[in-house]
């Protein structure tokens, strides 16, 4: 068969053996990274979850928990006289209701407290003492009633109001969301892409080519870093511009912290994706790992609220360390040295997960 080779074909085959161009763009690592980046950018859902979702969440929560100039509490009074006395207090919004309507309003939470006449000219407060609004309303209502009846305060007091950026809920929330986002995007992008490639036998196909295997994993980390710049920039920028969330620490430290965190979560994602053959198995595994951290690591509320005996475990979670360090940097202006314990926890997870993932990783 090969005896009657067509000369033209052979000549063409020979001429095509051109040496590889020295262009950087055709380096396998550059190509692999580029391809990862393109695949990600062409996935509208991923773009939404990584970039838009955290911003929307921050905006929503920021608006819901914005600091209002002194809350006005709604209460009900059973008689016009009581209502009259209570209206002297500016922090109360008093409605006069007949007793049936007042009971109904109290039960459904439309008012925090009901003031009704008791026996012998006494006043009876009805409220739920487990509700902070009820307790506050009780104090305010009682002060108004007593003052109206002629009580004079023995000590003169004045108020000096402080409303400082850095101690509001949005200030607490933005670093938490940033940490959660660093975790989610690293684990998801790593996990889904690798398991999907394994499922489609694309991993096996790549391994059948002369692709240097470490480049494949490295390309994930590089594309992660590219994405990180946008991801962190969008959320931190959003918080700083719209809500004046402070950035008291050095931005370089913040960058290093985000990079280290993202690498650590990527290693965790790589570990979770090292064996799974189906998307279902991988996403189950990822949720099992991430769920406890969403709850316990202090994204939305302080992790201090958990019992003391759980604190050592919670402190050892990578997301807790990341969020604590981010808050220390952004809100307290701590430098990296002051965050050594957190940085240590993050680095520990990075090393352990990466070593295990390399040992367990299955290419097919």
């Amino acid at each position, binding site marked *: *068969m*090969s005896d009657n080779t067509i000369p033209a074909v052979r000549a063409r*085959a020979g001429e*095509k053996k051109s040496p590889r161009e020295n262009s950087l763009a055709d*380096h*396998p690592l550059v190509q692999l990274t580029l*391809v990862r980046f393109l695949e990600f950018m062409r996935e509208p859902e991923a773009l939404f979850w990584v970039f838009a979702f955290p911003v929307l969440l921050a905006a929503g929560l920021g608006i819901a928990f914005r600091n209002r100039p002194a809350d006005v509490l709604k209460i009900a009074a059973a008689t016009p006289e009581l209502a009259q006395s209570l209206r002297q207090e500016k922090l109360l919004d008093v409605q006069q209701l007949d007793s049936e309507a007042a009971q109904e309003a109290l039960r459904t939470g439309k008012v925090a407290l009901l003031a009704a006449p008791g026996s012998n000219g006494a006043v009876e407060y009805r409220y739920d003492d487990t509700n902070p609004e009820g307790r506050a309303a009780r104090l305010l209502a009682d002060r108004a009633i007593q003052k109206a009846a002629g009580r004079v305060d023995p000590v003169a007091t004045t108020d000096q109001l402080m409303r400082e950026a850095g101690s509001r809920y949005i200030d607490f929330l933005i670093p938490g969301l940033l940490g959660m986002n660093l975790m989610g995007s690293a684990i998801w992008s790593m996990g889904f892409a690798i398991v999907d490639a394994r499922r489609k*036998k694309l991993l096996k*196909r790549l*391994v059948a080519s002369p692709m240097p295997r470490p480049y494949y994993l490295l390309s994930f980390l590089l594309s992660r870093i590219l994405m990180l710049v946008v991801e962190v920039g969008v959320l931190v920028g959003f918080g700083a511009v719209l809500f004046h969330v402070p950035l008291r620490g050095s931005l370089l430290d913040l960058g290093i912290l985000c990079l280290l965190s993202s690498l650590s979560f990527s290693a965790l994602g790589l570990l979770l994706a090292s064996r799974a053959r189906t998307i279902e198995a991988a996403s189950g595994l990822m949720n099992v790992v991430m769920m406890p951290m969403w709850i316990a690591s202090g994204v939305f509320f302080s992790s201090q609220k958990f019992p003391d005996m759980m604190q050592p475990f919670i402190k050892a979670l990578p997301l807790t360390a990341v969020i604590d360090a981010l808050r220390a940097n952004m809100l307290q202006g701590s430098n990296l040295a002051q965050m050594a314990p957190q940085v240590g926890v993050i680095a520990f997870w990075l090393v352990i997960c990466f070593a295990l993932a390399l040992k367990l990783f299955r290419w097919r």
Partner: protein
Amino acid sequence: MPEIVSKSALRVRQLRKVYKDVVAVDGLDLEVQAGGCFGLLGPNGAGKTTTVEICEGLTPPDSGEVEVLGRHWSSDAAQLRQRLGIQLQDTQLSEKLTVHETVRLFRSFFRQGAQASEVIARVQLEEKQNSRVGDLSGGQKQRLALACALVGDPDFLFLDEPTTGLDPQARRQIWELIEEFKESGRTILLTTHYMDEAERLCDRVAIMDHGKVIALGTPRELIASTCADQMVEFTAGNPSHALDLPALRRIAGVRELRTENGAVLLQVAELHTSVPALLAELTRQNVPLTELRTHSATLEDVFVTLTGRHLRDE
């Protein structure tokens, strides 16, 4: 590649691979000469893919020896990868990338080879260069897979069932590309369970069953080795007029007789003596003939003769 024309491209000795309780490859010996297309033929589960993947260095064998282009996977994997073109069975390339991006990615792994756009032109996908892989038809996807295998200008091309599931036109396009590669004097190892594909493309064929090679030679030799060149297939009779099969077997020139879905298949040496004898015998038995066909024996007939089963059967 002139320097290896006279040598073996692939030498496999006493290869064995067991998966849990299934013996996928059972002491296989194989030698593929450089240049031309070698076909590995067999039904699903015969061990073709396992054999090929061991040869491609993707699956380690339990025992046995594999030498590809005179090298071993244990010592020369990196050099070997540069010289092989591989197309695996049902790989799905990334659907979000374009044809050009995909080929360019694979091109970046090889030290030598044509530009991505030239390889794309060779597999006739120029018009689809900027289309997403997900938008390609089955045949176009296979041609893209072939482009990814050809992009490093390989000396040895491994194709694992390259036309399975494609329509006839798409299959012919793939065949033309394979023939073009073959004409450049390089080597192809092709697995298939399509007879026509093997007969058209392969210079030599090994038929595999249960992890072993059960026949080896050129398609012509294999067909000749079944001792009969012609097949006669007919349907006759009905429940009230059953055929007297032993009498048919005694007709001069009939080598073998078997029945299949109500039809009778005869392997005969010469049509011009056996067919008249058959017709005479049917007349004697007073059985009406409803259908009569003849064809030259194919590799399918070889396989059925050797194993009693069809290649496409599980």
